[in-house]
């Protein structure tokens, strides 16, 4: 079948969600009373009516082939009346009205290699980005990093034994597609060389737009071969790559100098404390595919130190704020460097402006 026979359709918008709702959900829509965690990856919502819907959650790599999607569809047909959904963190959820099917579904998922878990005080799936799979900006791969980290913290996905939820994110460049800037732990691909200005610049880029794109004003007008071009004041460049976003003749990639930084303590929920940005933990780790051992080790270190020291219900950022950053660096053994000290716009507000010091 091809679409050519039909009249051309535009602006129809997404399908109405109601079409895809389990009948029991449609019936009790907006009438849920409470929920219970039955096991890692399994929870149950109880409606005012007494109806119960059971959810089984499984981890996925997000990058899914149609082959696998068809397997998921088949599982849905078999266990959940054909109803399933994805979560905001790329997990898969089957919606069951029959609790007896939970265990068989779990068994089959696990046999297929899809872990059940990610609920409650677990490490859930890693929100991530395109990396070398599809993006021109990336300083690293994303899917590979996710795989390596999740392999290492797998038991934290299938168990719910952390002090609180722990959200990890990966982004392959400073654009931070995803939620790197507000995650408990974030892995961020970074460049460390200024853009390499290409001769094509005068043809393919608009110079004023390009100059305006630099947050630090590092890009200055320059004349190259009698044409309007630009020069980069290297000391003013902090490698954000925004110039490359607006101008393809300013590539940033550099196999030797690209790498990873690690950020901690961000959160999004309003539970207890206000949402927080992630803060720099490690300014640079080398890009070592396929297994990125340094990155994995750093993340595992943070998770373990957190698991050991945080109090119940304390997110990573809440824990660090309680114990203080100096202790965070002591406990993890991470080196504190000049890079940790902010020197962008609001830097002065991050200085320690009280005599409150721990010794």
């Amino acid at each position: 079948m091809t679409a050519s026979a039909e009249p051309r359709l535009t602006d129809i918008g997404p399908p109405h969600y109601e079409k895809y709702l389990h009948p029991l959900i449609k019936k009790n829509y907006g009438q849920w009373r409470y929920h219970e965690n039955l096991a890692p990856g399994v929870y149950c919502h109880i409606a005012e009516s007494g109806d119960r819907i059971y959810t089984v959650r499984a981890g996925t790599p997000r990058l899914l082939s149609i082959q696998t999607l068809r397997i998921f569809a088949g599982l849905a047909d078999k266990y959940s009346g054909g109803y399933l959904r994805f979560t905001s963190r790329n997990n898969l959820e089957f919606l069951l009205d029959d609790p007896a099917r939970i265990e068989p579904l779990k068994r089959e998922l696990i046999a297929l290699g899809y872990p059940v878990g990610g609920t409650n005080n677990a490490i859930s799936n890693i929100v991530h980005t395109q990396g070398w799979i599809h993006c021109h900006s990336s300083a690293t791969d994303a899917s590979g990093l996710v795989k390596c980290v999740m392999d290492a913290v797998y038991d934290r996905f299938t168990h719910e034994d952390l002090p609180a939820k722990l959200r990890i994110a990966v982004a392959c460049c400073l654009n931070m597609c995803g939620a790197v800037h507000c995650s408990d732990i974030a892995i961020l691909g970074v460049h460390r060389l200024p853009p390499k200005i290409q001769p094509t610049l005068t043809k393919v880029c608009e110079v004023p737009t390009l100059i305006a794109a630099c947050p630090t004003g590092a890009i200055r007008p320059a004349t190259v071969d009698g044409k309007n071009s630009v020069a980069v004041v290297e000391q003013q460049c902090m490698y954000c790559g925004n110039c490359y976003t607006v101008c393809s003749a300013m590539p940033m990639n550099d196999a030797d100098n690209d790498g990873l930084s690690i950020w901690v303590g961000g959160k999004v929920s309003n539970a207890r404390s206000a949402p927080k940005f992630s803060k720099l933990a490690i300014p640079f780790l080398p890009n070592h595919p396929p297994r990125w051992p340094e990155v994995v080790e750093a993340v595992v270190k943070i998770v373990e130190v957190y698991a050991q020291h945080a109090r119940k219900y304390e997110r990573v950022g809440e824990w660090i704020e309680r114990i203080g950053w100096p202790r965070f660096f002591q406990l993890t053994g991470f080196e504190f460097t000049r890079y940790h000290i902010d020197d962008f716009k609001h830097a002065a507000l991050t200085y320690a402006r009280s005599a409150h010091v721990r010794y």
Partner: protein
Amino acid sequence: MPDDNPKTELLDELENGPWPSFVKEVKLAAQTSASAQDLLRQLELSYQEKKGHWKHGGLVGVLGYGGGVIGRYSDAGEQFPNVAHFHTIRVNQPAGWFYTSDALRTICDIWERHGSGLTNMHGSTGDLILLGTRTAELEPTFQELAQAGFDLGGSGSSFRTPSCCVGMARCEWACYDAMKLCYDLTMAYQDEMHRPPFPYKFKLKCAACPNDCVAAIARADLSIIGTWKDEIQVDESAVKTYVSSGLNIQKDVCDLCPTKCMAWDGHKLSIENHECVRCMHCINVMPQALRPGKERGAVIMIGGKAPIMQGALLSSVLIPFVAADELLDTVKELLRRIWDFWDEYGNNRERIGELIQRVGLPAFLDGIGLEPVPEMISAPRDNPYIFYQARKDGEK
């Protein structure tokens, strides 16, 4: 059809380990897709060289739309001809990411015919992403999707695909119908989504309570976060059940309440509701005993975004409370005014949050006709650099 198996020594390593492997997925797709095969090859090269091989995206798309497709070309197109073009299509997901097995299969079938067979379920903004196809396939894919009831999402300087938490569909804390609002707004702004009219992208996310399961506050230019105005609903006997089954209510609830507005005297939990900031913590801990109040609605927040270029922003309060049944109209009217202001004063590639920072929140409020209220700020100014407008003559 692929004729030989790509050699992927480095990638093969990523098939080991317990977490499901994306490499396995690409290999699965590669069984039937030449572009997935070349993707594997190019990726292996990237892993060897520690360097991406994609060129700066070109402007490609479907007829009459200015977005929804991310153009992508390989810089090693001769070596990997099947990914020489490798554009992705952003398909607007159903609200709440609900599917039936049939809907999934429909998508798979279309994508099998027209693309790499690879997807992201889902992109960070929320779209269902069809990962990689050639320019010529874009229009046919689009039309087949449309016939099946799917449309494209946003990209470029457009209204981006809104997303929402599961809300009333399966959550007892939903303070408004996030899926419906998300759907209604998506439908209302098809034009703004498909024909980029703005200085830059504009994202909207709906979270039906302050837990914000869709990370709106961090990632959306307009965040609609459910909340309530009246008193937390308390089921006393359920409180007692929690306590008798081992909950340390003083330590785990009262002490962690950010305003310390809860007290437990050993028998009764009392809440000074006018001090409660609706953080959800106590409710999260005791879902059977506590529930949001009955007068429900949302706080509207503005300006969240990632760091490029003036630094990341968290959304901040714009309207402290809108009743649930007034949300759609209020948000639409608000968007009209915000977009007018942005249109007039926004620089190229300036997100709304950055514009507000640049002109100042007071000027922005003037511009969109909202009165300042103290809920918009965490504290009044501490610098005395006040742009007084009133003069003696003006005043009396």
